[in-house]
């Protein structure tokens, strides 16, 4: 076995392990393990309706943010510099 093979094997296996670790940490950080019940319900209550709902929320958020941005811009226009 050449040294290169050994190096590549260690590198790949460590990298794969690190990927798993990173995924776990990401889940932990974003609070996905905070509520175990929800974890399961997410799968149970999934469907077209849920997707529509999520899209609607996304749109609403975008609209509101745009509105508040506009408002701030307007406020600035009114305010003399």
């Amino acid at each position, binding site marked *: 076995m050449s040294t290169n093979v050994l190096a590549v094997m*260690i590198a790949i296996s460590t990298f794969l392990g690190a990927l798993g*670790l990173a995924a776990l940490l990401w889940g932990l950080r974003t609070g996905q393990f905070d509520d175990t019940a929800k974890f399961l319900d997410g799968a149970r209550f999934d469907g077209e309706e849920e997707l529509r709902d999520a899209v609607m929320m996304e749109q609403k958020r975008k609209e509101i943010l745009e*509105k508040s941005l506009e408002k701030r811009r307007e406020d600035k226009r009114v305010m003399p510099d």
Partner: protein
Amino acid sequence: MIRDGEHHFCCKGCQQVFHLLHDQGLTSFYEKLGDQTLHPPSDSASGEDLEHFDSEGFLRRYVRKRPDGLLEVSLILEGIHCAACVWLNEKVLHRLPGVVEATINYSTNKAKVVWDPHSIKLSRIVEAIRSIGYDAHAYDPSLQEERALQARRDYYARILVAVFATMNIMWIAIAQYVGLFTGMKPEYKQILNVAEFVLATPTLFYSGWIFFKGAYYGLKNRFVNMDLLIATGATIVYLYSIWAMVTNKGEVYFDSVTMIITFVLVGKYLEVLSKKQAVDTIDRLLGSYPTQVRVIDTQGQGRLVPVEQVEVGKIVELKPGEKVVIDGRIVEGAGSFDESSLTGEALPVYKEVGDEVVSGSICLDSLVRYRVERPFRESMMSQIARLLEESLNKRPKIEALANELSGFFSLIILTIALLTFGGWYYVTGSLEEALVVAVSVVVIACPCALGLATPMATLVGIGEAAKRGILFKEAAYLETMAKADTLVLDKTGTLTRGEPAVVAEERFAPFDPALIAAVVTRSNHPISRGIAAYLRVKNPPVPSHFVEIKAKGIEAVVNGHQIVAGSVAFLQERGISIEYRGEHTVFAVAIDGRLVALFELDDPLREGAGEAIVKIKELGLAVVMLTGDSPQVARRIASILGIEYRAGLLPQEKAAFIDDLHAKGHIVIMAGDGINDSLALARSDIAIAMGSGADIALSVSDVILLEERPMKLYEAIRLSQRVYRIIKENLALSLIYNTIALPLAILGYVNPLVAALAMSLSSLAVVGNSMRIKGGLK
């Protein structure tokens, strides 16, 4: 039953909710419910207090403004009992215009709602939740509890990284060890070294960051701590290993670096895990109290007013079962008040026009109106809450022995390592050789054994205690408890049961117990309950006539028999001749005008109280009993148990007594269970609360006894003393190990394998010794 098309409803509320959901197209909720049944929505969800959610004070307190201009609030939802409830609430909130985000945690019932203040008000959001039959309260997300959770999550992430790295480094290290004996080509060794380096780096700088931070704060406050030794030790070994890797000389010790960090980090995490979740005490205490009272105006109309706005002189109405939140004096009506949360006295106090009502008591049985004499801020309950917060902040802290010792030890090891390095460099003139020996000194003195000495023993101790129903909120309390020399006990609820029970019975004529049971089961008075528990009659007959005369007794007709029962004075008043001399509370019963039985009631001592006190005294602690009760009762109990006592104390006076003991240099354990004890509990070094005690007492206490037996107190103290002894033994063990191994290392006799083996052995010895805590207790 209400018919509505093809649907049937139990009440109007359910029907309303159904139509609401139907209009929004959310009827699939009823399918998602599965086997769950629903409770009808409560009527309390009226709109009266909704504007409260939009008030300035509320916004400032609970609502967080996000950088993007949106507002965020944390709510606790009431009435959630299944996943479908979570789904429904989220859906309803999502459909409100202006709500950007709504997530509900099923296990904690906490919801996070983000909304746009320009499109919707919070009161409208809460109204929507209420309209479907749930209710919402705000809570402060900056509570320490939340922060503790954050800290735990942070630790957990660091540990995951450390464990991952250690596990991987271990198998690489095994290859290294084998190579050391059988010989290995330098190229292979080089690859393994680099792999170890890659794994050790994040462990040291990410997972080990906590130690660097701890060492920094320690140095800033001018003391050397364990963190410093671990941080410097790990860093030196790390740097040396890099040097060895680059120059390809000697062995690398990356595995030691990760092992040290991982082990000590896990120990620390376990401590954080068991750490007392300090809560916002004022909120806890006042949280269970109503925020509004019914104020009666001059026309006699009732109106709900927030407690802070009630002025002195206003008339407040109390309904049966309501808690008093503002101090005052009764102007109309009379009734029994439960003041046990203030005085610890188990029996209710009868109050009539002209008597003072104190906040914290509960109106038990009648409608009473009283005139406010002090504003809410100055009322008894608020005062106690304020005092409590103050005392918690300036609570005495006892420096932990192990921390002192390990700090001292760290300093010595670092000095010795430095001296060794200097000495070898001076003698041999070789920098490399001097460095190798100095590093082996640090490795062999690796604080594993010392670092594990305390956490290991306290961990076993805490686990053992938990098995016996004794919960320590923080590991360090075991040590403090072991050092205590005075035990202060509350009487009611701690030494005694806190509810009257029959101690003697005298029968003057034969009678049917069911007749008496029929009367006492109708009454909610503690004495009646005591009698009912004593008689134990199942399915007593229902009285055809029943009158309860407050604080005196009961008149009733059961199965045609005239029954008069109650105090001696009451029976005399009804023309029944009776006499009683004694110190107990008496419940006398006359049937058809003839005295048939007399029950003597007393608040009995808990089982094993006497034995526990004797044993605690044997452990060398002084025992004192404090009570708000009358001196006569206190004297009797104290003389049975053979302990000192102070009677008739107010909550503040109990706390002052503890302060006094502190001033004399005593370390005090306080055991109690009521709101009246919470101040004293907060002031003591170790506070023990009975599991069924008041919420506030539980939240200020350090140790909780799940079983309400005084023997548990003894067990807790004995266990803590034993753990303390084991800690000292562990420290001695690791010190002995170091005194033997260190000189060898300094003289340069230690090769890497021996160092690693010795390190593991010393750790094993400490762990093994700690396990003896389990065996030593029966």
